[in-house]
């Protein structure tokens, strides 16, 4: 493809986004190119195509790969304005949130690019959105969680050990990356693409599970409004936040399952101790606090139980260890992007639509790690002489075409 055939509107949008991400003013960019500011602005407005040498200089200034600026999209999805509105509504904004928004924007951009390369589309049949009913919000959230668990065939009692996988299979796009420790997660619905969540990798597994379920609650109740969730709870939570919290609790810790587990323990030991609470939290994959508050809200343990545990100032880790629970350090094994994203990247590489350098950038890893990922996504086949070689799986190959033929 020739540079001249790259869509100028898409290029202009990418240049603008890259400049903002690099925190460079239009004035500074114009000076860098030794041109007037109006001339530079004409490029961001798609009224003037940058000359090749100007484009190279801008890519260097913005520290953005030239190849990424030149993606042959028609105009990229209007996703950034959605995310920008997070910054507008958030009083706590700041650089940390800007960085998180940029991170999620980049993931979504890459994911859409891969979908176009492999010529596939993400699931578009989402559950209908719910209107928060008047009356007790917790009861309504409980009802919605039960409905969703039933719709997703999760049963009424079982813990959801991999909420990310469950919701990705339901069509959500869940990304996990390191954010500022105050941020729990971001969420945005991109028309034509889907609902995207970015969860803080720096938080423990239990917290990440909670954030994913919480953001799913937002997806059901107010998917058109992007947002950000903080680790520290807001003083007075709006209705949507209260719904998302109650939904997360009921989704991860279903009432029937919690009660069954609770009474099994009480029947066995005629008591329910802090150690039992620790084990139950581990079973449902939630934090000790979330489990205690859930038991309180279901009236199974007295109100204020969690306050008394936290006032004791015994570290949660110590309590868990005493109960025989050891946290797994799973941060390294958590992939930053959905499984489908990874498979699309590998498919694009195997089909020679991208190079190894592009693959490594899309997979956010070194080239050798990217090669290993390709191997993992391949199957071994016998060459006929007893030796094994790798045969990349073709994900787009129809398994039904032989029948049709």
């Amino acid at each position: 493809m020739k540079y001249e055939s790259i869509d100028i509107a898409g290029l202009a949008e990418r240049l603008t986004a890259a400049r903002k991400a690099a925190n460079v003013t239009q004035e500074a960019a114009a000076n860098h190119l030794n041109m007037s500011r109006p001339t530079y602005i004409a490029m961001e407005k798609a009224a003037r195509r940058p000359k090749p040498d100007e484009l190279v200089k801008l890519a260097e200034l913005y520290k953005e790969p030239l190849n990424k600026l030149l993606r042959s999209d028609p105009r990229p999805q209007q996703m950034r304005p959605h995310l920008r509105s997070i910054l507008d509504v958030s009083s706590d904004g700041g650089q940390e949130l800007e960085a998180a928004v940029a991170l999620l924007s980049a993931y979504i951009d890459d994911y859409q690019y891969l979908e176009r390369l492999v010529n596939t589309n993400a699931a578009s049949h989402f559950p209908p959105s719910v209107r928060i009913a008047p009356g007790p919000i917790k009861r309504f959230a409980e009802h919605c969680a039960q409905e969703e668990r039933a719709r997703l065939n999760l049963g009424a009692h079982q813990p959801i050990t991999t909420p990310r996988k469950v919701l990705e299979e339901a069509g959500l796009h869940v990304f996990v990356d390191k954010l500022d420790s105050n941020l729990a997660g971001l969420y945005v619905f991109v028309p034509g693409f889907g609902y995207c969540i970015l969860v803080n990798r720096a938080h423990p597994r239990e917290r990440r599970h909670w954030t994913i379920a919480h953001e799913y609650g937002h997806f059901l109740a107010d998917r058109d409004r992007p947002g950000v969730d903080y680790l520290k709870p807001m003083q007075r939570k709006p209705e949507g936040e209260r719904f998302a919290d109650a939904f997360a609790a009921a989704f991860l810790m279903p009432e029937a399952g919690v009660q069954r587990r609770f009474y099994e323990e009480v029947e066995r030991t005629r008591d329910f101790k802090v150690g039992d609470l620790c084990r139950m939290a581990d079973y449902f994959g939630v934090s000790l606090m979330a489990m205690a508050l859930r038991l309180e809200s279901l009236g199974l343990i007295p109100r204020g139980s969690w306050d008394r545990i936290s006032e004791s100032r015994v570290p949660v880790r110590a309590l868990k260890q005493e109960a025989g629970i050891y946290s797994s350090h799973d941060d390294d094994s958590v992939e930053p992007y959905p499984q489908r994203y990874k498979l699309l990247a590998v498919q694009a590489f195997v089909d020679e639509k991208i190079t190894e350098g592009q693959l490594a950038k899309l997979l956010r890893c070194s080239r050798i790690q990217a090669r290993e990922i390709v191997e993992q996504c391949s199957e071994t086949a016998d060459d006929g002489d007893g030796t094994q070689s790798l045969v990349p799986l073709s994900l787009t190959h129809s398994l039904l075409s032989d029948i049709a033929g």
Partner: protein
Amino acid sequence: MNDHVIDCCSLINLYAGWGGLKELRDFRRTWHICVAVLNEAEFTREFGPDGPPQMVPLDMNALTQLGLWLPARPETEREIEDYVNFATEVDDGEAQALAIAKHRGFVLLTDDRKAVKVAQRPDVAVRTTSTPNILQSWGQLDPGNEARLHEVVGRIAVLARFSPHKDSPDYAWWRRYFQA
């Protein structure tokens, strides 16, 4: 033609195979490397003292200071124009290497199938070579090198996780030295 421009994937392969790149000096060739490759910190792997292979960062500046290659960047208007054209299809390092190889008549050393495909187009017509080709030439330079080929190919396969594609003409040669 003795000038070769090295792409990042082949650089990683050869480094992993030889445990360094000083063997490049054994060839009577001038090696070039693009600034886009130099600017991207990359990794290779080396066997740990007792355990599995470990990631090792490649110090590109130190390698350049050894005089193994000459840094290159697209300079003329035509080179820059083609660099941008190639960057619509391949990564920046590969695009620079293709543009330089095309306009200066260099051979492109790459193991990337898409980069090779672009290089072979009639409007590009850049000659290419690969890690297996380089190792074959290196093996012919000296009997001692030939004796090391099993070890070198095995290191590339295990440490750099590289093997030529099954459709590659080098596949059978590679399999003589390494079988999974």
